[in-house]
């Protein structure tokens, strides 16, 4: 019964895959362009240049440091630091030739084994892949409202109940969203691998992150379904506005907490209410001390500081609630 939806998602997935392919091609181009800069190992070969002065030492934190000085380019000073766990830092300073005065170039380059390289929790891979899936879910968004535009007579004259039909459509879309997550995971892995070979580890958080990665885009899709199925027109506005609103609201809900001003209290209540039903609130990614964390380490309090399992639970409940709303609206539509 959901043949039309199959066609739609097939076309959308195909377009999505092409976009990812193009982006990957771009990443390849970038990779080739910075190729020369990345031969960190070349700096180690400076050790073989005539007149090179090499000093190796062990640092108090256990990492090994090699310092190479060569007369090249008016004097090149190379510091290579390896932490013994696969992480390597290369720092290069070149003093310019005497004719144009002192020209120095400071830089830190990542080598084949990435700088500041720490192994990454596998869950984050999927979590990152889920972000473009949110966009994919947006594009698919609101299939039932779409039918209301012009096609209800076709849909409502099929030999299945309304609920049955809606369920088929939703299942097709969910399958497609999961497909898009897989595609973007592959894309991300591939894009990273051409620069750096990542190492992953599995922690307690990993499976919660997986869950969130799958649930968040589906909840986003469910939200659109629940909000727009009763609409004949104007679906596009809701789909568009949802993004900026959903992104601002979590942060806004932090304002005015504990205020005694009546207006502020109302504002806070409204915004907090919106934040509570906003899937993005529970899908926050914040950076703190260089780590990307699904758990906010900034202790923002309230909805933004919930532990991962709770977030997953809330998102699932939210998704079910939105789906239920959408189905109820669908039962009422008239051609």
């Amino acid at each position, binding site marked *: *019964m959901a*043949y*039309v939806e199959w*066609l739609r998602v097939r076309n959308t997935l195909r377009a999505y895959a092409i976009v990812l392919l193009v982006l990957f091609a771009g990443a390849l181009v970038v990779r080739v362009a910075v190729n020369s800069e990345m031969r960190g190992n070349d700096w180690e070969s400076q050790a073989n240049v005539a007149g090179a002065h090499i000093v190796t030492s062990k640092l108090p934190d256990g990492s090994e440091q090699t310092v190479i000085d060569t007369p090249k380019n008016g004097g090149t000073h190379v510091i290579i630091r390896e932490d013994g766990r696969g992480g390597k830092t290369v720092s290069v300073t070149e003093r310019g030739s005497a004719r144009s005065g002192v020209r120095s170039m400071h830089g830190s380059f990542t080598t084949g084994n990435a700088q500041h390289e720490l192994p990454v929790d596998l869950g984050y891979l999927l979590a990152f892949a889920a972000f473009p899936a949110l966009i994919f879910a947006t594009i698919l968004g609101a299939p039932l409202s779409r039918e209301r535009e*012009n*096609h*209800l*007579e*076709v849909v*409502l*004259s*099929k*030999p*299945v*109940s309304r609920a*049955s039909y809606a369920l088929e459509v939703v299942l097709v879309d969910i399958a497609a969203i999961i497909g898009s997550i897989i595609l973007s995971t592959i894309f991300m892995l591939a894009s990273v691998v051409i620069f750096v070979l990542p190492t992953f580890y599995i922690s307690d958080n990993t499976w919660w992150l997986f869950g969130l990665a799958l649930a968040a885009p589906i909840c986003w899709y469910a939200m659109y379904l629940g909000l727009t199925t009763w609409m004949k027109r104007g679906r596009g506005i809701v789909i568009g506005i949802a993004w900026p609103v959903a992104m601002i609201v979590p942060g806004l809900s932090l304002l005015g907490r504990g205020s005694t001003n009546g207006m502020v209290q109302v504002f806070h209540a409204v915004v907090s209410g919106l934040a509570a039903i906003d899937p993005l609130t529970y899908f926050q990614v914040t950076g703190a001390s260089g780590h990307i964390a699904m758990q906010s380490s900034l202790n923002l309090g309230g909805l933004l500081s919930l532990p991962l399992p709770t977030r997953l639970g809330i998102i699932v409940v939210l998704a079910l609630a939105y789906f239920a709303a959408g189905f109820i609206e669908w039962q009422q539509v*008239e*051609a």
Partner: protein
Amino acid sequence: MSSISIQQLTKTYGPFAAVSDLTLDIPDGCVFGLLGPNGAGKTTTFKCMLGMARSTSGTTLFNGAPLVPASFESIAYVPERSVLYDWMTIAEHVQMTRHAFKAFDVARCKELLALFSLNEKQRVRSLSKGMKTAVAVAIAFARRAQTLILDEPTTGLDPINQREVLNLIINEATRGTTIVFSSHQIGQVERAAERIAILARGRLILEGAVDDLKADRKIVDGILPADDTPLAAFSTDPRVARADRNGRIVRLVVIADADGVATALSAAGAQGVRILDLNLEDIFINAVAPASSTADVVEV
């Protein structure tokens, strides 16, 4: 068996009554024409019958039972406006129908598409209004349904294709299919329909077998001896639906016993009393138009 029974159907949108207290019985295997001016409630009636709009009150029974989703296996519906998907091709619509219904004759569908000179590979967005109608008709008739509900199935079609649709309807009728269709092409309804109903402003104005309506309804006209010859008797005569008078010329719309009325008119002193046949268009206009057709009466 595929009879349809519409019982006291009412559909209101707020204060506006699109259909009021409509009762119709469509027997099994009948070709039933639904006529009415624009906005009379024909499309609303179809939608309520098929459960696509929720009727405010009243029921529709198919073979004595209310409609359930499974009923649609043997009901095919051609809506008034195009409900095809612009971004899909005709072939994809055929596939969609094939997947949705058990009894779909793909070969017949291709035949019918060819009949209307349609190319399966075309995208619907590139089709004209008439071609979209043709696609919907081809798919509906290939369904081999026992009941066909057609809302203006010739919209936008050229006369040749209109005749093709008429042929399709007649062919289906010979197979005993129950067909309910609405059309502004009175000539088509005259040929294909066995029974008709006329709706106006949401109400049932007239219903009956086409042959009987034509046999019973006549115009009786005559010329009275003087401008002021009284004609009161005819305004209360149950056989007379309407009496128009322009000076000495009188025109009676008769719904039964035209001979008797003609005799009575002669007895009242009229000269040149004639009985004129009414075709379906005349019957329709007389039933629907307000009593101001003195334009039909020629000034002598």
